[in-house]
């Protein structure tokens, strides 16, 4: 057991800190902020980061990245330092995190050349077209169809939960191109320019009151067959590669740590009958319970990082982070709200709402994450089957297991 990163890494960290101190103020708005996507400011910052190996680090130089070997410790240091200083990590999102790795693995040379460098530079923004209203986690039930005519696909159907569709140039989508093939084999992975006629993007407002997502409708959308990645009908396999990337993205304890610190601050500052909320033994007991979980998740993330460094399979330990993390985040938000009492019910639009209504937003949004992106029910199936080696359910019953609530997202 050794929690130190070692001198080589601490040098890297020191350089990074110095860079952030000197140049942090040049960074555009925080990663993911919509206004800044694709702007000159963003691409300039991104170029600077790539130059130093702080962004697109493991993407080969020939495709516009920094060309370094993958190193989980370096990745952790980058994440920690950018997170600590709240400086933009550069271009992120589903293009660079999901599409690029997929293209590098499965794309043709022409596809890589055409899409990867632009994406890495931040000039080309992508959205993901997987979920459909009738097919949530069960992607095999996708119905959006691609009719082959000559060298083109004609796409009809609807995608949902498409988070960045409104300002994306491109979508990577799963389209059913072989209607007669068995369910999993009839799907292709297709790159769709968002300015193609027949595409209609509609904001999807959630219970938070904001449109964090979109619906995208396709009406005879014409896309060249050359835009299929891998072979026709191979999309299911390819998507699974990408989904693995997404599952990894969701496993960090940083959100919980930040919410814990925020909740602690709320309890320290909030006053009830003249005393601080944190002086209420009952609220404090809840806080300590959640602190223990937060620390456990943080330790767990270190353990999983170590497994990757050692090249070990983390087994069941590697499958539980998402289930625990979202629930913990939801509970932390719930505690902060309760500590504020009636003030906890205030929301965006109220000057008196603490942190701009952050806590109610998180309370709802984290619940959305429990439901979405691989539901709690699906996670439990995965843990018991892959983690504990319990049998998959017989066919009829398996259907039941996977069609549980939340499979809609």
């Amino acid at each position, binding site marked *: 057991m050794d929690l130190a990163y070692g001198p080589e890494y601490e040098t890297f960290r020191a350089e990074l800190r110095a860079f952030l101190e000197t140049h942090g103020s040049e960074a555009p708005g925080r990663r993911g902020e919509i206004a800044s996507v694709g702007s000159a400011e963003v691409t300039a910052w991104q170029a600077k980061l790539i130059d130093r190996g702080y962004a697109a680090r493991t993407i080969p130089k020939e495709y516009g990245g920094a060309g370094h070997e993958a190193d989980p410790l370096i990745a952790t240091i980058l994440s920690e330092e950018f997170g600590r200083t709240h400086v933009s990590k550069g271009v992120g999102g589903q293009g660079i995190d999901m599409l690029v790795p997929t293209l590098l693995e499965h794309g043709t040379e022409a596809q890589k050349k055409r899409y990867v460098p632009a994406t890495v530079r931040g000039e080309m923004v992508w959205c993901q077209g997987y979920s459909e209203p009738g097919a949530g986690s069960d992607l095999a039930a996708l119905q959006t169809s691609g009719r082959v005519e000559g060298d083109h696909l004609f796409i009809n159907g609807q995608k949902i939960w498409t988070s960045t569709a409104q300002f994306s140039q491109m979508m990577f989508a799963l389209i059913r191109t072989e209607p007669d093939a068995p369910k999993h084999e009839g799907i292709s992975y297709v790159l769709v320019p968002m300015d193609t006629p027949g595409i209609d993007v509609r904001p999807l407002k959630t219970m938070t009151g904001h449109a964090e997502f979109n619906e995208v409708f396709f009406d005879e959308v014409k896309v060249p067959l050359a835009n299929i990645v891998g072979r026709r009908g191979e999309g299911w396999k390819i998507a699974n590669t990408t989904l693995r990337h997404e599952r990894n993205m969701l496993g960090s304890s940083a959100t919980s740590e930040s919410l814990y610190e925020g909740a602690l601050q709320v309890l320290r500052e909030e006053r009830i009958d003249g005393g601080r909320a944190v002086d209420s033994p*009952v609220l404090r007991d809840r806080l300590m319970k959640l602190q223990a979980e937060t620390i456990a998740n943080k330790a767990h993330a270190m353990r999983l990082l170590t497994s990757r460094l050692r090249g070990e399979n983390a087994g069941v330990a590697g499958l539980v982070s998402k289930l625990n993390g979202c629930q913990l985040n939801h509970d932390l938000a719930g505690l902060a709200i309760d500590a504020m*009492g009636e003030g906890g019910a205030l929301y965006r639009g109220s000057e008196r709402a603490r942190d701009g209504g952050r806590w109610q937003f998180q309370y709802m949004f984290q619940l959305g994450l429990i439901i979405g992106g691989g539901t709690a029910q699906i996670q439990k199936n995965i843990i018991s089957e892959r983690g504990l080696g319990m049998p998959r359910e017989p066919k009829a019953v398996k259907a039941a297991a996977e069609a549980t*609530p939340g499979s809609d997202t």
Partner: protein
Amino acid sequence: MDFGLSEEQALLDETVRRFLDERLPMSRVREVVESESGVDDEGWRALAELGVAGALVPEAFGGAGLSLLDAAVIATALGHGAAPLPFVGSSVLATLLLRDVADGDVQAQWLPALAGGGARIAVGIAERVEARQGAGLTEAEGGLSGTALFVLDGQDADAFWLVCGDDAHLVRAGAAGLTAKPLPTIDRTRRCVEVGLEDAVPEASYRGVGASLDRVLDAGRIVLAADILGGCDRALALSVAYATDRKQFGRPISTFQAVKHMCAEMAAAIEPSRSLVWYAAHAWDALPDEAPLLATLCKAHLSDVGHDVMRTATQVHGGIGFTDECDLQFWFKREGLSRQLLGGPEALRAHAARLQGIA
């Protein structure tokens, strides 16, 4: 021995629900919450004709002269409808203050107007439950100054009951020095305001009425619990309906064990909660010694049950439950506000312990 609703109460429940189904369906609720006042005035007046607005107004003042159990039945129905109507604040808290605290003249002036649905009185009593930062009133030379937060049903109210220590003051909306500002919460179906006062002169002041204030608080807690109960009923009904409609793998998801069990857990939590709400309301009407404890525990319990039910119902609805388009969010958020009003669960349980001399 008869622990249950009377035929009249069952009819009252049915009448209000049917009215809301017809006149305030969720499509209409969505319009109302977008409006400035946030209240369906027309609907409120129509409901007043059915005796709802004046449920607790004595018959002598044109009201229905009903019991708190009746009011709880109404509140459950209004909660079931997520009704954007000023019942808890104006028809319960303000009305009971008029009834129990005010003198005859003031009663004669306001109670008939409340019963008719033409006037509304908001109530600022949050400070009596727990003093919070940035709020508090002081009285000097007959004028009130300070801030009252979470004044219930305060949007477009005609007057405000404002509580300061053991005193209750009735201040007209137009009084010099009084400003009322919207206080947006997650629940858009009921509007709270923040009342600012600078040497505002009350229309009437009643001093040393702490015992009455506490009794009114008890009533408010029971009625809020009843409102949560109605929301839980609706959330469960929506879940069962959604599970019946929604097909996956060619079968309604209502046939799957995990979905059924989530619905069963909601029902198992809701039904004894209903019994508790009835018991607490009846105690307020007839068993005054038991009422304070029951009101306190009832509100705490319903807040926790409500929280669980809303989360579970959202999960049954899957991704759809997270969208604005899904009506479920209205109850989710209404419960979120009700939970905190007049005391959150932890504060209420501490209060319950004190009431029993346990603390």
